């Protein structure tokens, strides 16, 4: 589908639609086509064929080791095909569901403080050794081990003990009732082989890294630093051999080079930004599709700042941002306005019936007046004559986010606020985030598909980098974790969303969509965020 073709055939229509609408049609139809093909893998026109090599891009060097994941996202991606978790996520009718991966089934006790997982049988490691519950126990224990710098230790901290009564059963005991344990066990908790890692230094397993061994659909073949990591199909994979023969993770550090390679067909998958969609719209090798992901973008608020402790000020700031314009103009329509921290993909918990802050500069000004910040000339001052100033921090290297920051600065200054905008390198940005060295900070959370907000919103949580403290919210969060009845649980989270939308611990901006540039030969790639889609890598196949 090509804008030029459409234009030629429908001259009148061409005159009426704007260029942007054409691009949206082209992208949407291309996306719908690709999505349709992807979702119908195995069913309709083309039957899956085995064979072929599939290539995707990484921005940096991966380390195929799930415990410490020093390379963050790069590691996570390759680990998805080499290792398995106990569970994985599936997208059904625009809602995320949790299904078993290594686990066959699981059962909590009456008050959700203990879970018994049954494992699938007949699973083997890439070196032929049998996979058993001992491997799960080893992995979890080492993740929780204070000597090991495990990246998921915080997320699994609630587990007080993990035991294996037999080879195919694992029992988790928790420090307090927790409805979301199964979901968290699917979040980057790749199970590693005890027989190869026991007794090794788990922070620097150099011997293991020469030949990483997992249970996944693909086996590690080769790693050339700065160049690529290659994996081959595992014919003994417990779900059946994968369709592809091999996958290449190509290291392409430059964003523009990734787009160029997607255009020329050298890459089968590249993640692109909204401004790059146009460049790919004329490509004969690739199509861009948008997929939902469990994430939200926001301005973090430093609650140790007296100014920002006043909820009226937070509401004023939210009202001064035209979120619809952000989504339509900056994101090119690839996103939705965020009403709160729970993503619509968590369909049973999400509610949009909360206070929203439609764009209204006058109303924003009135809120500031009410908060005691009145206009003195063109600057907002309080009763003592002190001006209202805000330091806004953002991460470097994200062009779309930089535009959001500049836009926000503009809007706030229109209200009479003096804004200092600082764009920092990622490591510096994160350090300032952790130490509350900011007033507002632009960031995002990509979270496991759970409505649980403890980690960032509870007043005692170590990842509550906003120092937000609201006893009502604390209460609701704990209730939500412990509630056994699903309907009651959903109600609790809906209440929580109402409270959060009123109290605005952070200024919710939007739910972003992931833009995937997929080669036209790619089939069977689930239409979800690629971090989760890759857990289904055994289903990917290529025409050719």
């Amino acid at each position, binding site marked *: 589908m090509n804008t030029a073709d459409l234009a030629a055939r429908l001259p009148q229509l061409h005159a009426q639609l704007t260029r942007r609408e054409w691009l949206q049609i082209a992208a949407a139809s291309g996306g719908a086509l690709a999505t349709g093909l992807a979702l119908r893998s195995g069913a309709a026109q083309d039957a899956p064929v085995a064979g072929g*090599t599939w290539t995707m891009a990484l921005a940096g060097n991966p380390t195929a080791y799930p415990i410490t994941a*020093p390379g963050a996202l790069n590691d996570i991606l390759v680990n998805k095909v080499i290792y398995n978790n106990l569970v994985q996520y599936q997208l059904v009718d625009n809602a995320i569901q949790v299904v078993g991966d290594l686990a066959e089934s699981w059962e909590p006790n009456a008050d959700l403080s203990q879970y018994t997982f049954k494992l699938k049988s007949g699973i083997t490691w890439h070196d032929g050794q049998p996979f058993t519950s001992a491997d799960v126990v080893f992995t979890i224990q080492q993740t929780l081990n204070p000597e090991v*710098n495990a990246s998921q*230790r915080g997320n699994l901290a609630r587990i007080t003990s993990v035991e294996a009564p037999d080879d195919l059963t694992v029992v988790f005991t928790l420090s307090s009732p927790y409805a979301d344990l199964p979901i968290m066990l699917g979040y980057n908790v790749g199970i590693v082989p005890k027989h190869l890692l026991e007794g090794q230094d788990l922070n620097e397993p150099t011997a293991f890294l020469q030949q990483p061994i997992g249970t996944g659909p693909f086996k590690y073949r080769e790693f050339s*630093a700065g160049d690529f990591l*290659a994996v081959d199909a595992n014919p003994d994979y417990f779900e059946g051999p994968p369709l592809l023969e091999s996958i290449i993770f190509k290291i392409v550090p430059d964003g*523009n080079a990734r787009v160029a390679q997607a255009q*020329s067909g050298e890459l089968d998958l590249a993640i692109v930004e909204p401004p790059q969609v146009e460049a790919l719209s004329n490509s004969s090798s690739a199509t861009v599709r948008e997929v939902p992901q469990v994430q939200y973008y926001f301005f973090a608020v430093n609650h140790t700042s007296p100014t920002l402790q006043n909820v009226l000020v937070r509401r004023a700031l939210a009202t001064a941002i035209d979120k619809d314009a952000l989504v339509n103009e900056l994101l090119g329509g690839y996103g939705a306005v965020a009403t709160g921290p729970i993503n619509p993909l968590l369909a049973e918990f999400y509610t949009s019936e909360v206070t929203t802050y439609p764009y209204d500069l006058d109303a924003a000004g009135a809120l500031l007046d009410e908060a005691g910040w009145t206009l003195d000339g063109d600057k907002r001052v309080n009763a003592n004559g002190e001006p209202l100033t805000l330091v806004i921090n953002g991460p470097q290297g994200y062009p779309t986010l930089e535009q959001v920051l500049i836009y926000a600065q503009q809007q706030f200054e229109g209200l009479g606020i003096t804004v200092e905008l600082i764009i920092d390198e990622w*490591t510096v940005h994160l350090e300032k985030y*952790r130490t509350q060295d900011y007033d507002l900070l632009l960031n995002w959370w990509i979270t496991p598909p759970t409505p649980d907000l403890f980690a960032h919103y509870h007043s005692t949580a170590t990842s509550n980098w906003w120092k937000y403290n609201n006893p009502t919210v604390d209460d609701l969060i704990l209730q939500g974790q412990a509630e056994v009845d699903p309907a009651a649980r959903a109600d609790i989270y809906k209440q929580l969303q109402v409270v959060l939308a009123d109290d605005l611990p952070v200024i919710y901006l939007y739910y972003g969509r992931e833009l995937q540039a997929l080669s036209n030969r790619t089939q069977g790639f689930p239409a979800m965020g690629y971090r989760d889609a890759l857990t289904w890598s055994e289903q990917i196949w290529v025409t050719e």
Partner: protein
Amino acid sequence: MGAYALRRVIQAIVLLFVVSIVTFFLIHQAPGGPAMLANPDLTQEQVAEMSAELQLDDPIVVQYGRWLGHALRGDLGNSYNAIEPVTAVIADRLPNTVILAMASIAVSVLLGIPLGVVSALKRNSVLDRAVAGFCFMGTSVPVFWLGIMLIVLFSVRLDVLPSGGMSTIGEDFSIKDRLVHLILPTLVLAIGNLAELTRYTRSGMITILQEDYIRTARAKGLREVRVVLAHGLRNGLIPVVTVLGIMIPRAMGGAAITETVFSWPGIGRLAVESATSRDYPVVLGATLTVAFVTIVFTFLTDLLYGVLDPRVQVG
């Protein structure tokens, strides 16, 4: 000559020390810590623990002393990002940059010097001005833009050249495959140097060609080619050799942008990436490697200088 060599060696050692001290202090002064601590999933306690393990809270002088103690014994430590010794990481990437640097220098020299000579001979002609214009563009065009433009043209549109990497992944080693992958990054890296070399050669030759001994050679009836090459070029090359002595190390350490755009796994890109992610051991290792290469080439240039120009006494 022996005393001279010894003096140079001592200078080199002192220089490496200074480079290591300056680099160490500068990179530790940069705000933010190692990237692996910047993982949002980590808890505050974990970050504090890992920071303590890396001994990043010790006074900077103590940290340097510790690093120096190990370095003098040949242990440059382990990379934070790669779970590998720094020496292995560098040894992996260094040859790739050497190949690229040598190729681009070769192209610059083989094209630049003749262009410079011809421009000098045909001063102010149309050819001279055309070459001058090309040189001006060559030194002005940003490398990252030129790289992407060439990729778009030759890889995406024309599909005749690969857009990055050193070789076609999954295929067996072949010289032809390697050379094909070398073409675009070499061109991009060569253009700036080519432009400079052309200008240096041109001005060097113009000066030489006005010398008395050139006039003498012509008066003796020698063929122009012999005059230019045997008498003129040999002397005109002296400033060029000096410039080459700087260009080679610069191509080695400064090819970061080209290496990034073309996904070339070299040491320039390694140095920049490790600095951005505060992989301190690798930053030190990469910087010292480039410093060492620079020192070696400067020394060789000075020796070559002495060979080319008998008026110059080296040592």
